[in-house]
């Protein structure tokens, strides 16, 4: 780990290359999180590319016991992210899959085992990468509001993501963080769990949204879109006036856009000012 107290060190190093693992949910549902991640990584001094041949980390199959499909899908990542210094995902769940579980899937594969371990080693969740690897002291942005934070389970317990997003949020002007007492309790998403056991999932997310409302916050943040879709969807159904964003959006100064489940996304903002 790089000394996070010394951001000036960054200048001494050649820029690192990052392959962004967009994650399927961000790719399909909320591309703006991907652009927020690119923005933050570039601000931290990384050069970011988004390999074309990525689809999903394989978790839906892996957690359903379908290891054959999980392996087939995960194998695409081994090629896609070859050559990058790091792989970063705006999700603790997908990063945890690549870091801890894909190596397990290929543990007995004479050809791919080493490559899976190598891929796992260089893979990080976005906020922990920014803080722990790049030494970003805090994020500079503006967001007017009182936010509360939900720690998504995989990020928290598999990857130790807890302080990093909070540290980055400290630099956001106008933002007050009020902690959620049940922040470490699962929201009930659990990938396919929420459709396999919808009634239990509903009970869990109902308790979660009630706890969120009790904090008095006007905004909910988290680091995983799956959990956010679940909680935001419940709050919307309950007509709670609480907006939900991925933490990367707020850190990248994109909190003026539509919250999750709100209309009015202007995609042209992401394709204007093209690079090239």
């Amino acid at each position, binding site marked *: 780990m790089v000394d996070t107290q010394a951001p000036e060190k960054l200048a001494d190093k050649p820029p690192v290359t990052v392959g962004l693992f967009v994650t399927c949910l961000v790719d399909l549902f909320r591309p703006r999180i991907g*652009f927020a991640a690119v923005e933050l990584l570039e601000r931290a001094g990384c050069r970011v590319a988004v390999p074309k041949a990525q689809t999903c980390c394989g978790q*839906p199959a892996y957690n359903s*016991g*379908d290891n054959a499909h999980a392996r087939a899908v995960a194998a695409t990542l081994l090629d896609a992210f070859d050559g990058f210094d790091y792989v970063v995902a705006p999700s603790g769940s997908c990063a945890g899959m690549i870091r801890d579980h894909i190596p397990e899937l290929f543990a007995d594969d004479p050809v791919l085992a080493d490559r899976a371990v190598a891929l796992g080693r260089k893979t990080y969740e976005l906020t922990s990468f920014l803080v722990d690897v790049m030494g970003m002291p805090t994020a500079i942005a503006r967001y007017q509001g009182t936010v509360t934070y939900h720690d998504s389970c995989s990020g928290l*317990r598999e990857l130790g993501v807890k302080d990093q997003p909070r540290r980055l949020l400290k630099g956001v002007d106008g933002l007050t963080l009020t902690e959620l007492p049940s922040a470490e309790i699962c929201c009930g998403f659990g990938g396919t*769990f929420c459709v*396999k056991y919808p009634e239990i999932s509903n009970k869990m997310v109902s308790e979660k949204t009630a706890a969120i409302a009790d904090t008095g916050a006007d905004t909910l943040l988290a680091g995983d879109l799956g959990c956010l879709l679940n909680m935001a*969807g419940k709050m919307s159904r309950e007509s709670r006036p609480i907006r939900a964003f991925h933490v990367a959006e707020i850190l990248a100064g994109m909190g003026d856009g539509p919250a999750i489940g709100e209309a009015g996304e202007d995609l042209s903002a992401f394709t204007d000012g093209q690079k090239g």
Partner: protein
Amino acid sequence: MQTTSQNFKANSIKALADPNLQQALGKMKVGFVEKRAKARDALPEFDALRDQARDIKNHTLANIDYYLETYEAAVQKSGGVVHWARNAAEARQVVLDICAQEKAKSVTKGKSMVSEEIALNEALEAAGYEVVETDLGEYIIQIRGESPSHIIAPAVHVLKEQVADDFRRKHLHLDPKRSLVERKDLISEARGVLRQKYLDSDVGITGANFLIAETGTSVIVTNEGNGDLTQTLPRVHIVIASLEKIVPTLDDASAILRVLARSATGQEFSSYTTFSTGSKRDADPDGPEAYHVILLDNGRTDMLGTEFEDMLRCIRCGACMNHCPVYGSVGGHAYGWVYPGPMGAVLTPSFIGVADGGHLPNASTFCGRCQDVCPMRIPLPKMMRAYRRKEYEAGLAPPAMRFGMDIWGFVAKRPGLYRLATRLAMGVLGWRGRRQGRFKSLPLASGWTDHRDMAAPSGKTFQDLWDQRHGARTTKDLEREAAQ
């Protein structure tokens, strides 16, 4: 015990709709969790002690035949008898044989999950014995005709007012106008009623938290003292223990005891930790004349050497269920067999098979909190996932899910096809949802939209937008950009 694990889904829906149960679970979720956290924080060595406990048990399991034989010899030396039982039927038969030989009429029992596992009460009652559970929680569920819903708090699902009703129904010899409002009233009534039962009983049956090879000792850990009365007053003491309870020495047991109560109830140590070695000695003024130990396998040895061996480290503290959001939502009975919560989600398919118990390892979000709090560092999510794999490989997973996985897998391993398919799907969904930003209902996703809205996709995928922006795709692109 009648198994309803196959009906986990229906059981859980019923549990969610039961207001008494939900109220009881609400109380449980806070108490145990806060008390454990406090106990952990008060002991700086706690995590190191967990590592040590894991190591002790791993060492023991690696040589468990040696330690069991050593234990057996030590018990015999102390005047006790060891019986080996391959399965539940054999264990029940040993108990019945002892009771018959001792011409017993009544049996008192300390709390024992293994006795639930082998359905001992039913067998004893069928043979004509009076069986009395003496742990307060076990007594409550016995008179309610229920099974335990928690491994250390068997009546956690019952409210105080329900206990009062049960006592009035059952204790007809007492004044019907007596007050049963306070917990103290209920506890004092149970104390009085059960006191005579201990004194009248011929055989006392307890479980064991540990068996100690060094000394041939069985250990019970309780708070009430019922286990001690159960094993002290009757003529015969029978210990029923599954064989993975063995540890090498008194010191090893002590080391594990440091994490047991703290993880379970948040106590630093339970009120009574009792080490029993053999029967009454000649000069002893009290104690049982006979001491029997039944070593139960019932599927444990099948787990040795497999990916489920870690589960044999379990010391039955209940921390995993206390911290499980699924258990906290539906309670223990929904799990449908003896062991609920995350540990039950591994033990149930291990003992009754994945065909009947397969729901349980699926009913987890893999939030990982169980593993996080397990004093023996058992990787519970990993083992639940392994059972999902076994279920899938055996063709037992629901056909709709398999079909879905096949399609998803076919597409997701072909990035080009995936791009095309997702572009079309997200285009349609994004267009349909663009006005509201979310869907109140969606065909094929009612499991989601019955309970919550679904945010509409933006309409274009990140990948397509990135193309439009001509963003870098490869390390070569990055080198090119850097050179410009």
